[in-house]
Structure formats: structure tokens, C-alpha cells
């Protein structure tokens, strides 16, 4: 029963409600749209500046450029030591392998925690939850030393290997939650039909976990694509640079006032994230609501 009750106990007169309800509603939309403009303005300004001639970026205040200069994209593309596609491909390789690594390693761990019974399960699960709260900065120095000893500096191994070793507890937790929501009877039926744990996992559980995998893949994409600290630490050869490292280089050439080109390449660096956001919104919102990932 959905009774809508007004706050005043005495019955309000019959005529006003419509008018009374539309005014706050209208005000609310004005307020929300205002916030929306503030939220979007920086991005719109960046896009607008990317097609303005560099010398008018700070003089032409309008969002719609008085003069268009699409040449910023062509010039920006080749402004750094390598053409921009090198950085895009580097980032794409790292992101793709990170996604594969996270999906494989985290889903294996999640299945063990969600479905298998073995000695020490509770302890290990508690440890996994603990690592979710462990600040990563404590590990940086020894990990750097370790990767140095392994001869992995200036390679992608330090960026990739952790993803193949299920080091991100958030994704494991997300998948555990998802797998627990699947009926246990599926596993039992598979076992009765003679499936071992691996076949059950691969043939029965994995295909049903696709929504959780999509969430993991999108979050991995966005966080690895934006990742700045690890590439900064481990990559020194410009040919290996990822997109964020490349974009940062525009700041070193600041004196040359190539703002249009800088904003053009900045937008190129954000476009894949925005694209993934639009395509995968449903999974993002669901994922963030279940695990609090950001």
C-alpha cells in the first residue's frame, strides 16, 4: 500500500498540491543541473581548449571557440619523443594483460573462498580482507629492491605480475559475494555428474559470473589506465612510457605555450575511460555499490 502522506497532519486544501509540488521539484532540477554544470565544466573546457589555437586558450573565454584549430591533435600527436600511438599501444598492452590476470587469478581465489572447504579457509579469507586495508606505500621500497634484483626495472613485469597473483582483494571480494549468490545446487549437480572442482569452476560457475567479471574488467581498465605511480617508478625508457607518463611530459615543455596540443592529448588520454564509462555504466554502478570500489 503506497499512501503518500503530506507532512502537515491537517488535510491540505485540494487545489494547491500540484503547484506546491512542482515548485520544489523545479527548484531541485535547477539546483541539480547547476551542480551538473560545475561537474562537467572542467571537461568541456578541456575539450574546447583542445580545438582552440594555443594563443587564444586563455583569452577566448567562451566554450564555443571563436576560431577552431583541429591541428592541435595532429601536432600534439607528434610533439613528444615518440608518436602518441606508441604510448597508447603500451597502455593498451598493460591494461589488457592486467585484466586477463585479474580475472584469472581473482576468480580462482574467489571460487576457493566461496565454495570449497579446506583447512585454513577462514584464516586465509581474513588475511585477504586485511590486505584490502593495507596501505600499499609500505611495500613500495622493498618491492622496488626486489624487482631491481630480478632485473625487472624498465620492463612491464612489475606492473603486470601482481595482477596475475590476485593481489587486489577488492576484486576477489566482489567475486566471492557474487558466487555466494549462485545456488549451491549447481555445484552439487555438477559434482554428482562427475565434475571435479576445476571442471565445475570452469564449466558451471565461470559462465554465470560474467557480470562480476565485467565489473572487474571495467574497474581494472580504468584504474590501470590512469595508474601513474608504478609506471613512474619502474619505467624510465620513453619508448616504454604509458599514456599518463607521456601526457605529463607536456608540462616540461610548458615554456613553449603549446596549450592547445597539451589539452588535445589530455583529452585523447581520457577518452577511453569516458568511453568505457558510457559503455559499462551498469556494471560500474553495481560494482561500486557492492564493494565500495572507486
Amino acid at each position, binding site marked *: 500500500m503506497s499512501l503518500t502522506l503530506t507532512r502537515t497532519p491537517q488535510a491540505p486544501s485540494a487545489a494547491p498540491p500540484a503547484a506546491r509540488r512542482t515548485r520544489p521539484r523545479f527548484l531541485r532540477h535547477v539546483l541539480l543541473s547547476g551542480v551538473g554544470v560545475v561537474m562537467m565544466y572542467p571537461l568541456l573546457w578541456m575539450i574546447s581548449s583542445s580545438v582552440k589555437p594555443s594563443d587564444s586558450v586563455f583569452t577566448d573565454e567562451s566554450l564555443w571557440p571563436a576560431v577552431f584549430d583541429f591541428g592541435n591533435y595532429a601536432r600534439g600527436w607528434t610533439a613528444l619523443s615518440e608518436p602518441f600511438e606508441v604510448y597508447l599501444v603500451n597502455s593498451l598492452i598493460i591494461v589488457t594483460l592486467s585484466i586477463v590476470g585479474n580475472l584469472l587469478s581473482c576468480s580462482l581465489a574467489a571460487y576457493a573462498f566461496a565454495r570449497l572447504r*579446506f583447512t585454513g579457509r577462514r584464516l586465509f579469507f581474513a588475511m585477504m580482507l586485511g590486505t584490502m586495508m593495507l596501505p600499499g606505500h609500505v611495500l613500495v621500497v*622493498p618491492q622496488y629492491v626486489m624487482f631491481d634484483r630480478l632485473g625487472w626495472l624498465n620492463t612491464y613485469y612489475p606492473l603486470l605480475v601482481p595482477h596475475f597473483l590476485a593481489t587486489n582483494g577488492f576484486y576477489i571480494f566482489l567475486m566471492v559475494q557474487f558466487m555466494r549468490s549462485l545456488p549451491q545446487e549447481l555445484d552439487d549437480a555438477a559434482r554428482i555428474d562427475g565434475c571435479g572442482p576445476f571442471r565445475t569452476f570452469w564449466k558451471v560457475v565461470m559462465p554465470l559470473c560474467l557480470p562480476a567479471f565485467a565489473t572487474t574488467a571495467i574497474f581494472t581498465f580504468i584504474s590501470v589506465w590512469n595508474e601513474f605511480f608504478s609506471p*613512474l617508478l619502474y619505467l624510465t625508457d620513453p619508448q616504454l612510457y604509458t599514456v599518463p607518463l607521456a601526457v605529463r611530459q607536456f608540462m616540461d615543455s610548458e615554456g613553449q605555450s603549446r596549450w592547445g596540443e597539451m589539452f588535445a592529448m589530455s583529452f585523447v588520454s581520457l577518452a577511453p575511460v569516458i568511453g568505457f564509462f558510457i559503455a559499462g555504466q551498469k556494471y560500474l554502478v553495481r560494482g561500486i555499490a557492492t564493494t565500495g570500489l572507486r
Partner: protein
Amino acid sequence: MIRRRQDWAGYAFLLPWFGGMVFMVVPFFASLYLAFTDYDLLTPPRWAGLANFREMAGDVKLHQSLKVTFVYTLVSVPASLAVALAVAIVLDRGVRGLAIYRSIYYLPSLLGGSVAIVMLWRYLFGYDGIVNDFLSWFGIAGPAWTTDPDHALTTLILLHVWTFGAPMVIFLAGLRQIPAMYYEAAGMDGASTWRQFRSITLPLLSPIIFFNLVQALIASFQTFTQGYVLSNGSGGPADSTLFYNLYLYQKGFAEFDMGYASSMAWLLLIIIAGFTAINFLAARYWVFYDN
């Protein structure tokens, strides 16, 4: 029989995770050891006792970096959570176009940590940037935000608030769980909107607020990219954006004073653990669990 077989399978599935734990547990203790040494990566670590910690006590830059990190965290985390909660409550009241608003508010939180956005912030808040243009409409002459030591950190706090969308989505999901009949009953008893917020929304949402608070504090204490990019690696102007982890990076990976960097890492770990512990203790007084 079956029991043993399951043990074996469990460990097999956890094999990559065990590997990952080695990747975390070994460096964890190695870093504790290095904190008491003098280590430059080229020669073996030399035991230095408490020397690093004594040096930290007198390191003015370290104190500055602590101040920057504390101010940033203690202002931007509550501010962004408050905005997130307020907007979520307005959206939850049933607004036409909810999905569009939610998307627009959420997108910045995916971009906020990226190099491109922090660079953009330098120009939005530049002396002749769009923010000062806007302020000049009201006759206010804005400062040179990013090059003025008194205002550089403010721009990063505003950047943090700009990313309120992530906690907002979590709050929205939480608000959806509160049964509408509670509000109906309270409304029938004549409770005001504010009273309903204090007595229904806040207690029922408190576990989610708590969770967000803990996560945001831990993340905020480790801020690095924003300070690094805004100041092009220096932490300037006048160390006003010298975040703790930026200073740690400078010590460890520019000066290769890895013993000192490890001591710094442990001090921050202790601070974060302390704040988290206080949070959990304080939670007894304000976080409400239904069961």
C-alpha cells in the same frame, strides 16, 4: 576422503593468491627491517638502529609534508563525503532523470586521479584561468591559485570534492535499502524532514558512512599523483603540495635513501592504523547495526 580432496583443491585454486601473499608479506617485513638501516640500493643495508627516526624528528620538510597531508585529508574527506551524502539524499527523493544526474556526478570520480585532470586543474586555477575569470564577474580578484603557497592545496582539496560521485553512488545504493514505510510512519507522527534525517536516514546509513570514511581516509593519506603533477614533482610552491608520499618518493627514489624512506613508510602506516583504530572505536557510539 572427500575432505582431503577438497583441501587439495582449495590450495590449488589459491595458488596464485599464495604467490601474491608472498609478494606482499615478504616486502612488508623487509620494509620494517629497512626502516632501521641505512640503505642506498648499491651497498648492502647497514644497521642504523633508531637513527632514521631521530633524523625524522628534526626533519622540517617531513613535518611540512605531514601537515600538508593532514590538512588535505581532514578537510577534503569530510567535505566530499558530506557533499556526496547531501546529493544522494536529494537524488533519492525521486527525481526525473536520476540516471543522467548520477552519471554526470559519477564520471569525474573516475577521472579525478588522472594526470590529465590534475594538469587541467593547474590551468583552470591559473592566474588567468577560468576560475579567476568567473570570480572577476563578482569583482573578486582571485589569487594565482596554483603558484601561491597559501592556495595551492585548496585547489587539490576542491579537486577531491569534485570526485564525490563514487561515495555518492554507494550512499544512493544504501538509501535504497531503507524501507519507505519508516518515513511514512514518521511522517504520520508529524516528524519534520530534519528529524526524519536525524532519526531514520543517518542511523540506518551509518554503517555505509563508516565504511566510506575508513576507505577514504586510508586512500587520502597516501595521496601522491595530485601533488606530484600539480607541482611537476617538486611539491611546491614552498612545499605547499608536498604530500607525505611525494616526500617519501623524493627520499627513496631521487636521493636513494631507502632506509629513511622505509622509516617514513612505517610512520605513515602507524598513523593510518591509528586513525583507522580510532574510527573503529568511535564507531561504537555512532554506527548503528540493525541485527
